[in-house]
């Protein structure tokens, strides 16, 4: 119980890999009760294009599409495997969180990087013993800017 209390983790989103943001966002809006969308972010450093959709209950989906030739999600997008890719949490101290995750058996997947979609906050990925990927974002204060209201099939993304 103490372990959970000591680490501040706030749920941020569920990440889903898609082939194309435009197609997937429209499809998502037809399937799920998505109320609002963020802008699209083309992140050269992480090699992904992403956007976030908030559904009625408050749950946030991140749609992740490959960006650039070395995108880490290119294979998943191509092969239809690991599409439901990650669960993401915000934390105030990524370094501390890393220690905790490592001590609990998580594998660290790469070094921390700045992410465009989070105002260039540090993000880092872990493979937890439960068998899935967790993304940690440094910045408990961060909130997505859901500025785009959409209805079914109307999700369009201007660069």
């Amino acid at each position: 119980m103490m372990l959970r209390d000591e680490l501040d983790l706030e749920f941020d989103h569920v990440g889903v890999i898609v082939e194309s943001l435009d197609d997937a966002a429209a499809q998502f809006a037809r399937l799920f009760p998505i109320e609002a969308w963020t802008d699209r972010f083309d992140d050269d450093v992480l090699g992904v294009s992403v956007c976030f959709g908030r559904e009625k209950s408050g749950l946030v989906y991140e749609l992740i599409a490959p960006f650039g030739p070395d995108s880490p999600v290119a294979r998943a997008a191509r092969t239809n495997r690991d599409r439901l890719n990650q669960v993401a949490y915000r934390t105030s101290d990524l370094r501390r969180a890393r220690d905790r995750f490592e001590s609990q058996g998580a594998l660290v997947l790469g070094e921390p990087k700045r992410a465009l979609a989070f105002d260039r906050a540090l993000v880092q990925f872990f493979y937890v013993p439960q068998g899935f990927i967790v993304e940690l974002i440094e910045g408990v204060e961060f909130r997505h800017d859901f500025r785009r209201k959409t209805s079914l099939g109307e999700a369009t993304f201007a660069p």
Partner: protein
Amino acid sequence: MVASRRGPETLVASSALVLRFGERGRPNVILPWVNDRTGMATLFGVIDEIKHPALHSLILRQLRLTPRHEKFLSRRFQNAAFDDLSLCDELAQRITTIAGDQIDVFCNDYDFICNIVQEEEYHFRRYDEYRLKSFQDAIAQVYANKPYMDSYMNGLLMTQMYWSNHTACFRFYRDRYLPSLPDRYEFVEVGPGHGLLLYQAASDPRARSVSGWDLSEASIAQTQSALARMGNAHRANLTIQDLFDAKAHEERFDGIGFSEVLEHLEEPDRALRHLRSVLKIGGQLFVNVPINSPAPDHLYLLRSPEEAMEAVAKAGFVIEETGFYPATNYTLEQARKLTLTISVCLIARRT
């Protein structure tokens, strides 16, 4: 003995070599390969105990003590070229000799250096700067703390094999820089630290004199001890010498080694100008400086290899040769894009 087929090779779980560290429930058994044809045990499919015995033994020891480095070291070595492995084996022999019966301490100190560098890495990523601002801070927080410094230096020695950019710099120095010096060259290394570079020069029959300078008595003693263990102490003249107070040595040397020192300095430009003054005209400087390389005692932040070249050229040198070596397990292109460490090696001639 349990064996399972994988292509042309047989994976053998021998109780003497299998490492288990399974408390965390992750894939966690390291198994050396035994090649059917040669019968040799290999680590990561490439490091075999006959061709690279010192490296093989040191990595096994490292992984027994600190299994969390398995993934990193596996990636570091599994695609390494044979001559890279041979050089690492040579370095492993020297490091094992320097460490003597303290080799386990050195392995644990490698883990220590990874932790402290990681701490700095987070600071660097958060604020886009090195944490320390002045040499006084470095003294207070790092250099004056002997146990910390000892562990730091031991760990750094291990990185000469484990971090491919460090190995590549050693190779550049041995294969490109030293042969570029004239016959019967006079050489000084400023800040010889672990002593591996100085030892290499002291073992070169073409060298007429080999010196090592450092400001710190403790550092000189450490280099002396390393050279004595490797067996070439008599050929190197180690002295406590402030580079900024080296007037008596003006235009004396054919070559100067300046490896992983620049990034520790408050006045790097001034240091480069002083280095120039103790070189003969036409003499060659070897610089090894890491860019984007957060560490507990790094002050001088260079952001690109080109910036490093410019700093050296500005001090009155012509750059003759360069080598850019990205952080382990990254390509140069990736390192540039992600602002990761690149070790920059330069041969610079005094005009």
